[in-house]
């Protein structure tokens, strides 16, 4: 019995992974036909979460749809941080040290950032010691902005 079965194991072991792969991809394609391909499933995120997750395209898309880039939203726990926070998209960009995200939001916003909000963001970047984000914010500095950071604390940590 063993002498008959064992020699057949090699071709089986060589073809089985490929066959399983074919079955898995067939199931994926069936799911795709139903609109829910497991590898192309998009997790819905809000603007602050998109910023925390470095999703520039979704940021642009949501702002174009009229979302307020200066409003606070929930960033769910275990997405970019261990805990849940209420952050604006710009705060999320600063918290994750992504200068290009801060740049993208300020570039795409329909209204420029006001002086008070800018000052607060600039102070947060200073608190984080992030020179890139600070330099990016300087590009968008409103004329009347100051840099008085008294009482500014990070809404994360």
């Amino acid at each position, binding site marked *: 019995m063993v002498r008959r079965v064992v020699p057949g194991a090699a071709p089986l072991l060589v073809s089985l992974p490929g066959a399983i792969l074919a079955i898995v991809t067939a199931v994926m394609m069936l799911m795709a036909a139903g609109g829910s391909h497991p590898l192309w499933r998009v997790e819905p995120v809000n603007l602050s979460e998109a910023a925390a997750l470095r999703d520039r395209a979704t940021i642009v898309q949501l702002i174009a749809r009229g979302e307020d880039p200066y409003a606070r939203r929930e960033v769910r726990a275990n997405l970019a941080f261990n805990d849940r926070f209420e952050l604006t998209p710009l705060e999320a960009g600063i918290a994750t040290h992504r200068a*290009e995200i801060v740049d993208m939001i300020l570039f795409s916003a329909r209204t420029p950032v006001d002086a008070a909000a800018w000052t607060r963001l600039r102070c947060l970047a200073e608190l984080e010691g992030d020179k890139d984000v600070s330099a990016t914010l300087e590009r968008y500095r409103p004329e009347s902005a100051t840099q008085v950071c008294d009482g500014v604390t990070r809404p994360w940590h």
Partner: protein
Amino acid sequence: MLAIAIAYDMWRMPIQVSDSLQEILDAQASTSALRPFVSDAGGNYYRPLRIAQIKALFDLSHGHYHLAYRGFHAALILLLVWLFTRALTVETGLDAAAAIFGLTVLTGLHTFLAFLREAFPINHFLEMAVFALVALNLSLSRGGWWADVLAALTFVAGALTLESGLLVWVVLAAAWIAGLRGVSTRGVVIVTALFAGYFLMRFLFLHTGLPSLTERSSGYLFERLEAAELQRRFGDARAYFYSYNVLASLLGVLFSEPRDGMFAATLAWKRADVHPFAYLAVGSSLAMTALIVSAAIATWRSRRPLDRPDRLAIVAAAVIVANAVLSFSYVKDDIITIAGVFYALAAYAAMRPVLKYATSGGVARAVVLSLALGVLAPAWAMRSYGVHHVVNEHAFRTRNDWAWLPLAWQRNGRWPTDPKQLQLIEALRKDALESAVPNPNLVPEWRGLWFGE
């Protein structure tokens, strides 16, 4: 099914920005698809059919750019896998097992990713691999005047699109030498004359040169050297640098290391920071190449008459070496993609005698080989599955590139003022931004560790 799933991935990927948008804008501005044939002379390349194809697809799209460019890309993937499968001989259960395994090697090898990650906006390396497989299938056919004509046309189309198209000649010549005479002696002579004609036209008539050292950066041992550094180090020792490139290309196909000319996995190992995908890639390639070499030596020693898969392996060896030689000016995984396809053919050809050997001896031999193959085959299947993850990652990056484009181009003064160009960019950008692409930062970390980027 593997091909359909990968073609689907391609369909979901937005058209890319870098190396692609400018080509599409040029196609919009161009008056005719035939124009590149008279204007593309000079410089270091002669690739008129490349630009002509981009223009032809642009005109045919009638505004459905994604359908035209990504549809063409997806169709090429299907064609590649179909032509690959068609070249395999499947008459027994062992053949079928080897063929299934060969497909996982084809789609799992890192060079295959170069067919998917980028398009310019057509992936011409993929096109060249399709042409090479067309040539192989013609050589495997029963032949006739039509096979000779198709072989000549395939060579001309390939050579006028990319330099890699010259490998069509290598396939036809090696197949003829190996005894695959679907393309007749007359056909091979005609293609050889065209091959010689290409060099005469390029170097004597059009005076098209060769790529210089200062054109692009390149991997060298453990670092990436910028063009100026390449010129400084190898300006007086080009032969040494070119030899390194050929060797690095060859090793890259056979062992998945170096990648793009750089020994990245070795460097990671020296720094004790090796990711699982590096072990998976290098380990499976090392074992596969060892198996191919062992099978070749065993076949050579047995003195048995060569069968069709043996001849395929001979062609594969010739193409792998020729492709490495063609990569002399700089090393990039994209350039050795054709070698990657033929490596998979060699893997199929090698697996057949190994399976025969495993099934025709005693229990001990069967157990040992089954255990070894039982590790090798899942490793390649896993590499093949990882392709989907890598395409996901690139789709995310590409979509983000479109978001970033106005900011980047406006700042560096590239943003066009022509309303027609702006309309085209907006259409492509809207298409990309509206595409549903998952964020790789939300997928489990193990996927990145095992499948790479």
